């Protein structure tokens, strides 16, 4: 009956109740929005780490320090032996030779400078290319190129079946070869599409005249082990003039951005919650003052102070739960839309480590947490009001109203 009394009491002042519920709903909505944003960034980073790039990247130390990291120098001549050694570590799931290089793609009178990656035919990296494949497939076996639709458009050859790849070989001489276009792709990152293409590793090596590989990309069974594996192999690699960098170092910018966004989210959440708690406290305090005589009557007929406290808290909790669920219900379609279609915020999106649009994340745990926080804020707001109400002397409470 106390529950019924508390819930029905909220309906006696519908506008005030609506204000409280909306304040909570709005705060939950804002929390959901920002947690979806950060979750989206995390998901993208996870995808990048788990599917697109190396958990550990091994290369020669001198190459790391070179002015032109794409120059065909400082290759690991004994890359195959190093790869075999690294594969022996049970924590390592895969080791691949990857050859980044600089080249010009020529289509008739037009040409375009690109960063190319020489890849192994069964590569497990660059999954965004395979996912965004529009024509052909990726990875592929044998000679060929994977280029973006954007690149073909810029070259004025959207339907090109083959392109000429021109590079500077290990001796500084030009080398070129006509290669079939085996895959045309379009990812969610136009900057990547406009600057990147892929060539099969043997062709890349043949054109450049290089031996070995400039980079070894490691995929681990558990990315969390990257630091431990890197430390364990540091001595072996150093003996060969090499160094291994973990994904935490390679994706440091994005990790820092996520930390910054986390902080930003907490600050925003705190501001929103403080504002909501103030509104809720005041509104519930007004309710309590208006109902002092009712509470006084109940205490006169034997209700204890703590039961009065519980009554106000139940009232606050009921409004908190209603507001939180409303907020979550309003946020859900927005989050679903932004998860599917993303939020285009132009170049700023790249600053957040995202593609052209920012895709939001969605998590039942985060939603449940936000709903709980909303309800707890209402509870905290009503606690103050409840204490103020219960502190009033019985005779004063009965005189009011």
């Amino acid at each position, binding site marked *: 009956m106390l529950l019924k009394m508390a819930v029905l009491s909220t309906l006696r002042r519908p506008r005030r109740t609506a204000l409280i519920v909306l304040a909570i709903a709005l705060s939950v909505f804002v929390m959901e929005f920002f947690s979806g944003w950060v979750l989206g960034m995390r998901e993208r980073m996870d995808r990048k780490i788990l599917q697109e790039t190396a958990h550990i990247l091994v290369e020669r130390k001198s190459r790391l320090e070179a002015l032109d990291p794409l120059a065909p120098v400082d290759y690991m001549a004994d890359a195959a032996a190093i790869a075999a050694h690294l594969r022996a570590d049970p924590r390592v799931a895969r080791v691949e030779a990857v050859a980044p290089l600089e080249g010009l793609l020529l289509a008739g009178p037009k040409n375009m400078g690109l960063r190319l990656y020489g890849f192994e035919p069964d590569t497990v990296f660059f999954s965004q290319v395979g996912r965004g494949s529009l024509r052909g497939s990726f990875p592929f076996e044998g000679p060929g190129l994977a280029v973006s639709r954007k690149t073909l458009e810029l070259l004025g050859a959207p339907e090109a079946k083959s392109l000429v790849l021109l590079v500077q070989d290990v001796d500084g001489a030009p080398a070129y070869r006509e290669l079939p276009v085996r895959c045309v792709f379009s990812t969610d990152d136009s900057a990547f599409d406009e600057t990147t293409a892929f060539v099969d590793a043997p062709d890349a090596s043949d054109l450049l005249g290089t031996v070995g590989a400039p980079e070894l990309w490691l995929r681990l069974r558990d990315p969390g082990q990257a630091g431990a594996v890197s430390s364990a192999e540091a001595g072996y690699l150093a003996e060969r003039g090499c160094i291994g960098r973990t994904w935490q170092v390679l994706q440091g910018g994005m990790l820092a951005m996520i930390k910054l966004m986390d902080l930003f989210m907490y600050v925003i959440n705190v501001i929103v919650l403080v504002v909501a708690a103030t509104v809720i406290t005041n509104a519930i305090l007004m309710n309590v003052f208006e109902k002092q005589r009712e509470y006084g009557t109940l205490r006169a007929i034997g209700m204890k102070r703590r039961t009065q406290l519980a009554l106000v808290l139940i009232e606050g909790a009921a409004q908190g739960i209603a507001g939180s669920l409303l907020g979550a219900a309003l946020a859900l379609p927005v989050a679903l839309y932004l998860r599917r279609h993303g939020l285009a915020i132009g170049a700023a999106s790249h600053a957040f480590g995202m593609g052209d649009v920012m895709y939001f994340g969605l998590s039942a745990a985060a939603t449940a947490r936000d709903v709980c926080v909303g309800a707890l804020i209402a509870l905290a707001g009503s606690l103050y009001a409840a204490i103020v109400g219960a502190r009033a002397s019985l005779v004063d409470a*009965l005189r009011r109203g």
Partner: protein
Amino acid sequence: MTLVRLENIVKDYALGRTTIRALRNVSLSIEEGEFTSIVGPSGCGKTTMLNLIGCIDRPSSGSLEFEGAPVAELGDDGEAELRLRKIGFVFQSFNLVPVLSVAENIEIPMMLSRMPRSARRPKVEELLELVGLSDYAAHKPDELSGGQRQRVAIARALANEPRLVIADEPTANLDGATGEGILQAMRELNERAGVTFIFSTHDPRVMRFARRVVRLRDGEIEEGGS
């Protein structure tokens, strides 16, 4: 048997920098089964006295005993328990919970005393029958007349079978006929069930229902007024 004993009760209220003395050395005994009226002009201390007897307020000095036990030794919870189990209240403005039905309003004290739900329902029906409101169980207080609301308040006051019912100006918000009907109902309960009633009034027509009249003036019981 003495139900309530007041001994040299003084009650002061602070009003800004001044202190108002509402009761001055009041001593009074209420015996079990009495039907007592506290009368006097407005501001003479009637409500203060009822509040003290009902453990709603505490005296500034003097002693108050309920069934021979000093009330001052009870804590906040002890006083609430005493009011719940042994004292019923009827207020001038009825003070019913507007969101609850008539039956639920009567049920509140039973719920607070943790009476099982199965025992509460027949008790509510019995009380509704007693105050003649059996057909109004599901109504909300604002659907009732003043007299009917006061009957609900009486039923609520009797819910836990108290030893004492305190009614502060129970007829003040009612017309003459309805007020008399309420007092008649209280008197019948007193005679039939032996419930002790103390009520305050300043209406001479109401006083004639009382078997004992305590006259208050300026916070003191008048000579020969008890």
